[in-house]
């Protein structure tokens, strides 16, 4: 009785439900010129990625045996001895001292280079007269293009004799602090001097990134500060620095990345010693990149593999520092 079919006409309240469509695919047929251009630029982009990947694979592949045989001690041990039949030594490869030395000279470089670069960026952004800005920016950019061996030679012949005296002076008055102490009288080719050379070399990149970040400071905040009777310096402290902080830190880390990877300049002004020494004025330091260039020429085949492994570690450290720097810069840029 209840099964009587209900006509649609008698039941207009229940119409056929509207079917919700799937979203349409929106396409366009690009012109030939656009397709050609797209192929060119995307292959350019992909090739650089592929090259980067292949380099790291190559280093990893070459160094794999070393990582297997040395294990963690490759990073922690200080010893770097090639197998030698005449001397009867067994091979032992560790870059611990070199890694430590790399970080030490990197931070010394940052310690001196960062304040100078920050000052240069603030000067160019807020104090320099118009006519001076362009030439100064040009000069700082050219600094980035100077070959690093030139910095090395300048460091060796010009800076080192001076810096030696500064080191002696600091040692004389602050020698009781372990890092400024000096067991002998060996002031040349020290981490201090290598760090100073690196400081000069990383100024351009930190300056230009800081300048770009400062230039984005919202004008309405700057004007608000001035309208409240701010001096230029108090405006910079209250508005520009809080806004640009992240970007500037990111720029400093990119500078650190450059310092860590620097090879020839450091090799010229640093005495490599396979030991961790706390004294930064002592002629004994380390640098992974300089180790490689130092040993490469006369390395035995197994030692060559160890150098490749060292290169891989350096590659990873530099990559990590750069990624971190970019992440910090991008996060600040988004905050607005």
């Amino acid at each position: 009785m209840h099964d009587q079919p209900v006509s649609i006409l008698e039941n207009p309240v229940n119409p056929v439900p509207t079917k919700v469509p799937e979203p349409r695919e929106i396409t366009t047929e690009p012109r030939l010129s656009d397709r050609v251009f797209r192929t060119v630029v995307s292959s350019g982009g992909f090739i650089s990625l592929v090259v980067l990947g292949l380099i790291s694979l190559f280093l990893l592949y070459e160094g794999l045996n070393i990582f297997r045989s040395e294990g963690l001690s490759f990073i922690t041990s200080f010893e770097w001895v090639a197998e030698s039949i005449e001397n009867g030594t067994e091979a032992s490869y560790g870059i611990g001292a070199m890694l430590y030395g790399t970080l030490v000279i990197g931070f010394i470089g940052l310690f001196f280079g960062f304040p100078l670069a920050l000052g240069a960026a603030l000067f160019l952004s807020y104090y320099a007269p118009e006519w001076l800005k362009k030439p100064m920016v040009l000069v700082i950019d050219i600094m980035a293009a100077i070959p690093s061996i030139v910095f090395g030679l300048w460091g060796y012949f010009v800076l080192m004799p001076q810096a030696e005296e500064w080191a002696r002076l600091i040692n004389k008055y602050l020698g009781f602090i372990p890092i400024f102490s000096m067991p002998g009288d060996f002031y040349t080719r020290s981490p201090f001097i290598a760090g100073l050379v690196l400081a000069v070399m990383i100024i351009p990149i930190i300056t230009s990134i800081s300048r770009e970040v400062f230039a984005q400071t919202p004008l309405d905040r700057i004007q608000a500060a001035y309208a409240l009777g701010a001096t230029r310096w108090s405006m910079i402290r209250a508005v520009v620095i809080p806004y640009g902080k992240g970007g500037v830190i990111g720029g400093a880390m990119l500078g650190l990345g450059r310092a860590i990877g620097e090879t020839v300049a450091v090799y010229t002004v640093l005495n490599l010693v396979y030991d961790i020494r706390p004294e930064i004025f002592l002629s004994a330091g380390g640098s992974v990149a300089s180790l490689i260039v130092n040993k490469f020429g006369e390395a035995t085949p197994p030692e060559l593999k160890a150098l490749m492994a060292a290169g891989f570690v350096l590659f990873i450290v530099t990559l990590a520092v750069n990624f971190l720097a970019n992440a910090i810069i991008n996060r600040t840029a988004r905050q607005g």
Partner: protein
Amino acid sequence: MNNERENEMSETKTNSLASIAAARTPGTTAMGVGLEARSVHAWFGQKHVLSDISLDFYAGTVTALIGPSGCGKSTFIRILNRMHEFIPSAAMAGEVLLDGKDVYRAGVDVTKIRLGIGMVFQKPNPFPSMTIKENVLSGLKLAQIKINNADELLEDCLVRAGLWSEVKDRLDQYGGTLSGGQQQRLCIARSLAVKPQVLLMDEPCSALDPGSTLRIEETIRDLSKTMTIVIVTHNMQQAARVSDYTGFFLSDGGPGELVEAAPTSHIFSNPKDKRTEDYVTGRFG
């Protein structure tokens, strides 16, 4: 027929604005001239944008500057507290007298001028890295002024800006957490903290909703009892509601000029210049 109707409409509009304006009695609270502009001209590069503006701003009153876009109103008030010179290629001539002394005279400390002549901008611009409290007191820090009763001053400024009851329980939150209208009142409070004699407001309500606009207008009326206020506005209703005096700026393609300045009720009921009448009745602009 059509024409007649239009006339009728504009007449009603004039009358209503005039009646709003008449509700305020101009000049009764005047305490003498606070700020004077004398033959002010302005240029951007070669372009002459303001010509020969002379205008007195009486202490304890609100002066509204009205006129179509591009007539130089904003340029004019930025000349009053020396914000004009931040634009490269900007130049000016003439004098601006605060208490009878030229703010452009040689050897003057420009930060002191801006402490005496505060400014509120079109877009609310609290400092996002500072809390509400720090924002209000930021002027003291920026101008390196030391005070003992910071909390008292904080409350006083927020009360006068009409914001105290809304924020008194969250003074340590960041300024950006407030609504647009609240942010603008925070900016007003921030300007008040350095105790300026004059407050310049450059279209302070143009980015706000009608409710917030009314709150700010109330604030302006309260503040005008104790200081000189100059407000640039596109909104003639607003000029009629808040101001004692009105100046009408106009540019006929050349530099902007001050067509007429008078008590606000005169401007809206009985303007002397035909161009003023055309503008306030909505025939153009």
